[in-house]
Structure formats: C-alpha cells, structure tokens
C-alpha cells in the first residue's frame, strides 16, 4: 500500500452531504485531509491555483476528486471535462459522488472519463461504509502517476484545442 499524506478535494454544494463526507472520514480516522469547495468554478480555481487558491499551501494537489454533478456556476460534468483534458490534471482519479441514478448521467460521466461513479447512500451508516471502502481503495491500493512535484511551478498547462 502507498503511504503518503493524502489529499481529497470534495466538490459538493449541499452542506448536509458535505458534512456526511467529512464526518465519515473522521469516524475511521483516515490519514487524509479533505478540502471542500461548494461550486464548480471554485473546484477549477482550486485545481488551477487561481483566485483564492493561488497559494499552493491553500490548494495542495489532491490525490482524488470527489465530484457531485449538480453544482452551481459550473456543472460537475464541465469540471470533469476540464480535469480530464488537462495534461497536468488528467491523471487524478475523479469519482462522481451524486444522488443521481439517471442513466443519462451515468453514460455522460463515463463518456467524459470519470474513473468511477457512486450513488450517495441515504443511510448514514451505509455512507460511512462507502467512504471507508473508498478511502481503502483509492487512497490505499490505487496508484497514480502523479507524484508530488516539489519543484512544480504554479502554472498548469492546458492542452491547446
């Protein structure tokens, strides 16, 4: 298993759902830090280190993005597309975490290269179980090719279209 300081970017506009995620991770003392943003624009500002997130200390590179679909300003799918078409970001696993079971949402998410798609359990105990398994799997077992870049500049290169 990998051992490193683990960063989760949670993109969730519903405060109650965000709270459930944070509490679930606290429950099993995961060695992870969760950074929470409440809309799609903030998610991209965080990842591209713009605006409020210019300072890398305020926006450490996440090991995983938990992404809701229904978001203010920019939708989850738009955020997903930006991540998966940007060379410096595309290797970060993006796990959709949504209430939607709609076929259309599932199909679009996979077409836009989501790594995984999870439906939020209504029951809190199940929610905790899901977060625990998610943590074990993505932050424990899964490997990514994006090591911490100690010498990285703040500039993220966007692929020219």
């Amino acid at each position, binding site marked *: 298993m990998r051992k490193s300081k683990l960063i989760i970017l949670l993109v969730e506009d519903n405060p109650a759902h965000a709270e459930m995620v944070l509490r679930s991770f606290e429950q099993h003392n995961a060695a992870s830090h969760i950074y929470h943003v409440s809309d799609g624009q903030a998610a991209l500002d965080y990842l591209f280190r713009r605006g409020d997130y210019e300072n890398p200390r305020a926006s450490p590179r996440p090991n995983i993005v938990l992404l809701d679909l229904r978001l203010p300003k920019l939708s989850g799918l738009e955020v997903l597309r930006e991540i998966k078409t940007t060379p410096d970001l595309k290797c970060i696993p993006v796990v959709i975490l949504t209430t939607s079971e709609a076929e259309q949402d599932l199909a679009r998410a996979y*077409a836009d290269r989501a790594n995984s798609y999870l439906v939020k359990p209504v029951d809190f105990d199940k929610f905790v179980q899901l977060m625990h*398994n998610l943590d074990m799997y993505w932050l424990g*077992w899964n*490997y990514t090719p994006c090591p911490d870049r100690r010498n990285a500049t703040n500039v993220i290169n966007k692929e020219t279209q």
Partner: protein
Amino acid sequence: MRGDPLTILLVEDNPAHAEMVIRSFNDHRVANKICHVLDGESALDYLYRREQFAHPTASPRPHIILLDLRLPKISGLQVLQTIKNDPAQMSIPVVILTTSEAERDLAMAYEGHANSYLVKPIDFAKFSQLINDLGLYWLAWNRQPWDES
C-alpha cells in the same frame, strides 16, 4: 446488466497469479462469475464475441476487467486503448492489475484511460485483502450505465 451474475473478466497470463485472484474472489464470495483469458487477443475476442466467445452465454458482459500489462499476442495497453476508444465498451471499468510500479507504465495506463491501477502484492494475505477491497468497491458500490446488448 442488472440481474446478470456479477462477472469479472480477468486477463492474466501468469497461471499462479490467476490462481491467486480466483481463489481470493471465491474466498470472499464477491463475484458470481470469473472469466479468465490468458492473452490480449482472447480478451478482445471475449469482449467482441468472436471465435470461441461468439455466443453471449459464453461471454457475459463483464462488470469490470482486471487487466495485466505484460500479455502475449496483444499487450495490456493495446487492449486498454481498444476498449476505451470504443463507445460501446468504454464504460466498463478497466482496472490494471500488474507487478509493475514503473512510472512509465503508470503514465501510459492513465493516458489510455484506465479507471484504476493496482500493483499485485507478493504476500497472499495482502493479495486477498486487495481483491476483497477491489471486489467490494467495483461490484458492490460502483455504478455503470445499463448494458443494452
């Protein structure tokens, strides 16, 4: 897909590793059906229902694909690219399961849109734990679009 047995396509040329995967799944009773092929060409024959896999009952659509990188005939990366460039197949999660920790392999796998990349533990107890967590995550929690075929 719904109501079908939970099916894993295991693409693994090393018989000992394949044995470990199959034993672990059986121990944890997570998957209903494991289809094992030994090379890249057979993996694609399976997915496209060709040759010995022509009949759909011989090749139920997998819920996930566990894919080694070093394979005879067609490499794991080529299999990955074929799947992920095909709209009809791209929504099947492909989990790389390999001995390689090489940065280049990691980079190429993610470039090829692998959903996940796992390195096989040497220790069987750890291997079994990995398979348990993997099975739970991809078969019990993860969702995919409904298969029309």
